[in-house]
């Protein structure tokens, strides 16, 4: 933080409509990027943000080039991308974006406006720069997929030290209300209170990849590991996939579609990014399981054979994603056809071409073609413990 308790003394903060939009994006894309950037902070605090269509807001947002009236001129392309002022009257809280930059909606070619704005709004709310490379408030820009973005713990701790956590429950609600202008948006979400997994051996419920990143599920939480950060970030499943079940039994990524499938009980959900596809959840029987199967223990897509293996008790099925149906000759016994991984699988995933089957607090690195266990390791090693 900036110290001296520099923060807003109220929980409802106003932000302005944008007068000069950047030409890089459509107005709808800019508005959506700004809304989601504020939502990042609203999710973990009691703060709500109200958009004003006229007058002076706490956070005035503008795009400008070079000298723009605040004694902190921008510097042309690259270099400084944006800046924002700490909470105070007048210019305090305002966020300025350098319009000599090329801003994008989600592409890594250019600077993702959502990411830049979320960082600047951290300043607008009272956060200074972080020395933690994985933090949103680290001063250097680094690309992260906006569809899978989760606010890192360092930033959560920082903002909650100023405003506290969100007391409203563990659901995310975004409501669009009405004002005389008809343009008021209020966002509320609860901050996750997350257990320390490193204090005891962890047993995963499920593991999946998504666009090169990894997600480890345990109860109602997930640990999100990316190439950008050496330490996985922790959050509630519901804060990442608002329409997901509270906890999951199994999960996998279909590399053909890039969609993630989550299984819970006798149902499964399919997500594109964070959005659940229409008509989901569906029943396991729609996937091709007999009605006698009450739940799936684990699932993994094996890229070398273009098949998804689904584990139920001591047997497993093979699913052909191309034909969208189960392969014939299944289920098979795990211990007989995948020797070396035991009789049951709690979670499974593929990483850098290797398969990992987790059972209890341990997991086995496995060579599928040779049907051989290569190594045994502890689950917690993936969580940076």
């Amino acid at each position, binding site marked *: 933080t900036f110290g001296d308790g520099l923060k807003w003394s109220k929980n409802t903060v106003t932000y302005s409509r944008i007068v000069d939009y950047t030409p890089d994006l459509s107005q709808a894309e800019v508005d959506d990027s700004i809304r989601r950037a504020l939502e990042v902070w609203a999710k973990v605090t009691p703060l709500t943000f109200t958009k004003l269509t006229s007058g002076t807001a706490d956070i005035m947002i503008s795009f400008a080039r070079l000298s723009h009236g605040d004694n902190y001129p921008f510097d042309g392309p690259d270099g400084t*991308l944006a*800046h924002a002022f*700490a909470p105070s009257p007048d210019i305090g809280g305002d966020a300025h974006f350098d319009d000599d930059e090329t801003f994008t909606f989600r592409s890594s070619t250019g600077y993702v406006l959502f990411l830049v704005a979320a960082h600047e709004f951290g300043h607008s709310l009272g956060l200074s720069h972080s020395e933690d490379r994985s933090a949103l408030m680290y*001063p*250097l820009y680094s690309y992260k997929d906006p569809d899978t973005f989760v606010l890192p713990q360092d930033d959560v701790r920082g903002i909650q030290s100023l405003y506290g956590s969100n007391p409203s429950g563990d659901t995310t609600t975004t409501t669009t209300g009405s004002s005389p202008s008809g343009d008021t948006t209020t966002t509320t979400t609860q901050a996750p209170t997350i257990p320390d997994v490193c204090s005891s051996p962890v047993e995963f419920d499920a593991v999946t990849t998504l666009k090169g990143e990894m997600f480890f599920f345990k109860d109602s939480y997930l640990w999100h590991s990316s190439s950008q950060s050496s330490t996985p970030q922790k959050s509630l499943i519901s804060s990442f996939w608002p329409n997901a079940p509270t906890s999951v039994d199994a999960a996998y990524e279909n590399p053909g579609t890039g969609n993630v499938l989550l299984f819970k009980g006798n149902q499964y959900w399919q997500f594109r990014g964070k959005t659940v596809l229409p008509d989901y959840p569906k029943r396991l029987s729609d996937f091709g399981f007999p009605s006698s199967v009450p739940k799936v223990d684990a699932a993994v897509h094996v890229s070398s054979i273009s098949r998804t293996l689904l584990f139920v008790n001591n047997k497993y099925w093979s699913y052909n994603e191309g034909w969208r149906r189960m392969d014939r000759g299944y289920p098979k016994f795990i211990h007989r056809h995948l020797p070396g991984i035991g009789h049951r699988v709690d979670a499974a995933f593929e990483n850098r071409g290797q398969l990992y089957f987790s059972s209890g607090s341990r997991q086995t690195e496995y060579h599928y073609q040779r049907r051989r266990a290569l190594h045994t390791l502890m689950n917690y090693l993936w969580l940076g413990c």
Partner: protein
Amino acid sequence: VPVSKVTVQDEGFAKGYLKRFFNLTEEKDPLSRKGADRMSKKLSEMQKFFGLRITGTLDDNTLEMMKKPRCGVADENIARYS
């Protein structure tokens, strides 16, 4: 002897960067050697902040870090807006 690739332009750029983001202030007396010490101290601060090797001198890694896209807010908490 290793030859520094840092140019006069780079030094000017680094000075501007440290003034902007690490509160490097101009020395009033141009003959004083304190200016160089101050620059070195600020370079060390910057190298510490970004987890670079702390040398107090402008090397290629430090210069490369300075040229990365970044937020325009000063990295020192004491550099407040007014």
